């Protein structure tokens, strides 16, 4: 069957029968076509792979910067034609409880759900509800016309029957608390329960605030005793009280006034107790502060005024000075009077509403207003940020509740939070902070990439300081002066150096080099000077050596003589360092650095990284630079030497300038390698994200940060995406630098060709 094939390369076939030959030919062409397809496919696949890297990194990072979206739902009519004073919903936005002037109502937000039902609250008695609000624990409370306050505990119990979710609303009206013994209506109240003690503060007159502190203590017999303390505070300033807020710790009470001020009352026991500073937040002295509220965590205060202005403030304590209320961000203003503020319970976002029917979603830390929603119809009376921060609800005076779903997974990220200074809660000034995880529930992750970029550049800088002189001098020597026999050994030796896994370098740097360097820092500094001096001296000695002896050693073998000299120089350098430390630095260089230069010393620091990463970069710069130096056309060097220039002059004046683009590209490639190096910086630095150029401090590089934090980051979360941004930056930095280096090298190659 098989035809006779005369050549192994399939060239000439002697056909046995014509039909078989045709079939064979067809098969050969088919094989050729398949191979062509396969090769083209693979080529395209490799190109696609490069594109895919960019695409995947980009598509994961992009949602961070997408604007938030809101989709409106059907409004829910509670059916009582009364204004909704306050309301809460469960985390799936299916059930809710509202406070109306006539009492409490339980309702459903889904169409198929049961209709609104009234909740029996016998505690109200004859009194009327004058104010309703959401308590710090997510329940409701009503201020009554007779000086009392009725807390109503609301809990949503979620259970699963198979895959079906069931939510039960449990409403427990509490016992009314007497806030004002004078029986004045309690408006603008705040209510919080913490560690068994209840605190209520409420406006009971235009300039009066009544405060109730009730503590329940259980004694050994299991009986509980209740202790109630009441206090009346009078506003010592112009205007009337128009808004009120109290933080969850009970440290401070904030009052908004009709003259546009926020006045702080220190409520902590001690000398500082009493009325403190006032901060003017409104647009004019006649604009009242109409709403006050805290963001999640109760540290940032939001104030809204009658002209629509929204600002954030926080309590700061700059070094040595007393705590003061300090304005932070100004948000996009409403057109109407701000009547409600509701914080997100997930992050630092919040919703504000005005009486003109506008709902705005803001983010506290960034100072950015994310969304503006219009609510047509009757004026708005209350708002609620959904518990999972995935929806916004607003209640209208006609008893309807409007409802939007919010698509806003990464509200805390803007280009400014990634790269600029951000004023975080609890910080005295704006700064660059990277802190992705924290201990507490209301911890706010801080995602500034700037300290990481700084760390990457710092590590690269110190690595290049070490690597560039060693690699370039070494390359110059190898290409111009080293004997070819030695070159064929030394070049592979340096190439092996490039192949050493960085985890090995990092391990040795972190566990051996770091403690070793700590002992001999002055010695290392001394070595930088001693080694060249010794090399100089060695050449002077060689000069005096009798010519007969010199002849025996061919030129280019100096390196063998230099190895012990450098070794000796290292030892001498370390000894000199010890002597300097003993006699000049009082035996402890670290104390000297701290006292005179103000530098602290970390064991795993930039010098260690510089040495270890320099070690990794040297062979890369060396190889590329040596290539371009060696391939300088011979007729150029020969010409120079023939004109009487010495070897050194030729190397310096002819070879170096000609090959300088190649050297530039070598340094660029070294830079690219140092930027992306991960294991060395991970193991040899303390990984603290500080921004400080000191060589004796550590840093946190982008690459190490990605390696450490990405395995822990939940897919699709903000941290996950921010780390992809970091990877994208690394990709972009190295790609640009390498492309530049490659283009320079291609041009240089062309240039060399013209000399031939």
């Amino acid at each position, binding site marked *: 069957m098989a035809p006779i094939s005369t050549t192994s390369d399939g060239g000439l076939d002697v056909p046995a029968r014509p039909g078989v030959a045709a079939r064979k030919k067809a098969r050969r062409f088919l094989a050729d076509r398949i191979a062509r397809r396969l*090769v083209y496919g693979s080529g395209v696949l490799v190109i696609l792979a490069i594109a895919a890297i960019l695409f995947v990194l980009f598509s994961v990072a992009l949602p961070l910067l997408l604007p938030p979206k809101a989709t409106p739902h059907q409004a829910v009519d509670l059916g009582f034609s009364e204004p909704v004073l306050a309301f809460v919903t469960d985390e799936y936005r299916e059930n809710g409880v509202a406070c109306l002037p006539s009492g409490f109502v339980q309702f459903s937000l889904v169409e198929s759900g049961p209709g609104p039902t009234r909740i029996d609250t016998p505690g109200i008695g004859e009194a009327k509800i004058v104010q309703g609000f959401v308590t710090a624990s997510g329940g409701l409370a009503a201020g009554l016309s007779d000086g009392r306050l009725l807390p109503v505990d609301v809990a949503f119990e979620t259970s699963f029957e198979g895959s079906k979710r069931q939510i039960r609303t449990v409403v427990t009206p509490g016992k009314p608390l007497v806030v004002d013994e004078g029986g004045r209506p309690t408006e603008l109240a705040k209510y919080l329960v913490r560690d068994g003690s209840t605190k209520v503060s409420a406006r009971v007159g235009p300039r009066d605030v009544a405060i109730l502190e009730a503590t329940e203590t259980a004694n050994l017999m299991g009986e509980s005793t209740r202790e109630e303390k009441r206090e009346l505070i009078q506003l010592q300033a112009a205007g009337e009280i128009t808004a009120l807020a109290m933080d969850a710790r009970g440290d401070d009470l904030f009052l908004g006034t009709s003259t546009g001020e926020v006045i702080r009352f220190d409520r902590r026991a001690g000398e500082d107790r009493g009325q403190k500073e006032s901060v003017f937040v409104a647009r004019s002295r006649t604009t009242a502060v109409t709403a006050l509220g805290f963001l999640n965590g109760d540290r940032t205060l939001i104030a809204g005024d009658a002209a629509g202005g929204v600002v954030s403030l926080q309590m700061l304590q700059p070094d040595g000075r007393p705590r003061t209320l300090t304005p932070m961000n100004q948000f996009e203003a409403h057109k109407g009077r701000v009547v409600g503020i509701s914080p997100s319970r997930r992050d630092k976002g919040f919703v504000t509403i005005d009486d003109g029917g506008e709902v705005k979603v803001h983010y506290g830390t960034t100072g950015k207003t994310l969304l503006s929603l219009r609510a047509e119809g009757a004026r708005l009376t209350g708002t609620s940020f959904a518990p999972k921060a995935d929806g916004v609800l607003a209640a209208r005076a006609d008893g309807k509740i409007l409802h939007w779903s919010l698509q806003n997974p990464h509200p805390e990220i803007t280009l400014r939070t990634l790269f600029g200074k951000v004023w975080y809660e609890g910080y005295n000034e704006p700064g660059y902070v990277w802190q992705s995880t924290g201990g507490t529930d209301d911890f706010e992750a801080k995602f500034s990439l700037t300290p990481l970029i700084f760390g990457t550049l710092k590590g690269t800088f110190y690595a290049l300081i070490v690597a560039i002189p060693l690699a370039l001098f070494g390359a110059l020597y190898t290409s111009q002066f080293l004997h070819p026999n030695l070159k064929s050994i030394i070049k592979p030796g340096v190439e092996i150096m490039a192949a050493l896994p960085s985890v*090995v370098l990092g391990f040795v740097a972190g566990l051996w080099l770091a403690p070793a360097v700590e002992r001999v820092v002055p010695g290392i500094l001394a070595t930088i000077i001693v080694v060249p001096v010794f090399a100089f001296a060695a050449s002077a000695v060689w000069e005096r050596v009798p010519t007969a002896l010199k002849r025996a050693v061919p030129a280019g073998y100096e*390196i063998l003589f230099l190895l012990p000299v450098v070794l000796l120089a290292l030892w001498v350098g370390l000894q000199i360092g010890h002597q300097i430390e003993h006699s000049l630095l009082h035996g402890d260089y670290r104390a000297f650095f701290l006292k005179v230069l103000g530098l602290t010393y970390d064991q795993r620091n930039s010098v260690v990284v510089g040495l270890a990463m320099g*070690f990794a970069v040297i062979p890369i710069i060396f190889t590329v630079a040596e290539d371009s130096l060696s391939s300088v056309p011979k007729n150029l060097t020969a010409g120079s030497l023939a004109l009487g220039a010495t070897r050194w002059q030729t190397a310096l004046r002819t070879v170096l300038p000609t090959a300088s683009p190649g050297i530039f590209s070598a340094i660029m490639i070294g830079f690219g390698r140092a930027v992306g190096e*991960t294991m060395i910086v*991970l193991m040899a630095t303390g990984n603290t994200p500080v921004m400080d150029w000191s060589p004796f401090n550590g840093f946190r590089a982008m690459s190490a940060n990605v390696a450490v934090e990405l395995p822990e980051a939940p897919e699709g979360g903000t941290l996950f995406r921010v780390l*992809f941004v970091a990877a994208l930056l690394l990709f972009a930095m190295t790609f640009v630098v390498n492309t530049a280096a490659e283009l320079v090298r291609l041009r240089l190659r062309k240039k060399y060709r013209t000399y031939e």
Partner: protein
Amino acid sequence: MNRFIRSGDPFIWVTGSALAFALLLVAGLLGLVLVSGLGFFWPRSMVEISLADGRKLAGSIEARERIPDPQSGKKTTGSWRFKLKQGNRDLYGSDFVWVDEKDVRERAYPKEIAVIERREWGAFHGRPLKVLEGETVVAEGVDRSWALLIQRLPAALSVYDQARRIEKDELGGINFKKEKIRLKRRSLELKGHSKGSALDALKAEEERLQKLFDKQMEALAALRGTVRTNVVFVSADGQEKQVALTNIVRAYRPNELSFFGRLGLYSSRLWEFVSEDPRESNTEGGVFPAIFGTVMMVFIMSLVVTPFGVLAAFYLREYARQGPFVSAVRIAVNNLAGVPSIVFGVFGLGFFVYIVGGSIDRLFFPEALPSPTYGTGGILWASLTLALLTVPVVIVATEEGLAAVPRGAREASLALGATKFETMWRVVLPAVFPSVLTGLILAMARAAGEVAPLMITGVVKLAPALPIDEFPPFFHLERKFMHLGFHIYDVGFQSPNVEAAQPMVYTTTILLLVVVVALNLTAIIVRNRLSKKLRTSGL
């Protein structure tokens, strides 16, 4: 003098010293790693010291230094101290102790002092006091107990091995099958079957396996019951400690060992290191799973990277029309080699693990969800990530080889009527084969040493099972794996007992360096041979 400086020679020497310095760095690093790592398994003499305060310690001296003195002006005081590896972590709390030489009253090297390597708590330094069989004393006195201990140890070790085999193979196999049945049941339930013969069969099978499991557990308990020997040891300072014979890995008296005895012990520990599983959160025992994981990952990577790299190089050099597009692609491929490895890791996580793996899970393994099968890091994804990382190495090497194949060879083949494919297959490919090999070896060397991308695509500090075992389908590419490089990072930096683990890390480093350097040297040699061959065959 002036002339001497103008001649430039001193500057040449200065540049030479830079090269010398770089070479010394390499030599120093390799020397440090070799010295610190190779000595670890050598059994050192045990010294028993009596201190001024009456305490007694036994151990080997690991280091000696001048006592640092941060208070006074000088950095150190005049006197010396040494670091003693005292063992007995359960009694003293730490493996090492610094001893001031001026406190030492007496040093002795007693022959009968023994090192007992245990499965828990590290080594015990001391003397055997008595041997118990259950509750009864069967030997008393140091020498008699020792003789009996040595006599019974091999049997105990073999029982331990059998027990482990039952645990891993028999019980592990039953658990594996049970998990499969659970998933099958779940998959039937997902399809809406709540009853039926298939489900009943699975249930019966499950019960059968449970019975088998119980039987094996009984066998295991019976096996363990055969060795009831306990040995009571006493430490140098007189504390007694009872150790079960099955808990002993190795027992020897270092001070009575001859050179060859030590050599034998050294080889046995070295063999344990390369062939056994790690113990004591990776700080003792061996690194076999890490070696296996590294080799298997590099192997899978090579299977992927070779065809794609070679085909892509043929595309760029032989098939594509040369022009700005191909030059751009070539530059991009070159640059891909310069992109940080961690970026490849991030891509591997985002693309292979979450996009590809997640889709595979939804399509083929819905019964296991929400716990991911392929939608989490694993050896396959790590290998593919590294394949992408190393594909430029293969492409560049192959392209260089293709450029060196003389044009005449191709033209001759085509002129004889061969198709392009036949020319490539029969003429060009054999000629570039050494280049491909060089590229592949370099790619393997690079892959073996990379750690950062693996950290996010599937490496773990302790993998419960190897990616290959005797249970179908034999290759479990979705499994997480151990890796030598990651082992170095993990044990050196994340271990609870870094000081004790450090020598072991150096040994692991040597292992990794041997692999990487050997691969690189092979590549260099192949390349040199090749360039010679090409020079001679040039037309």
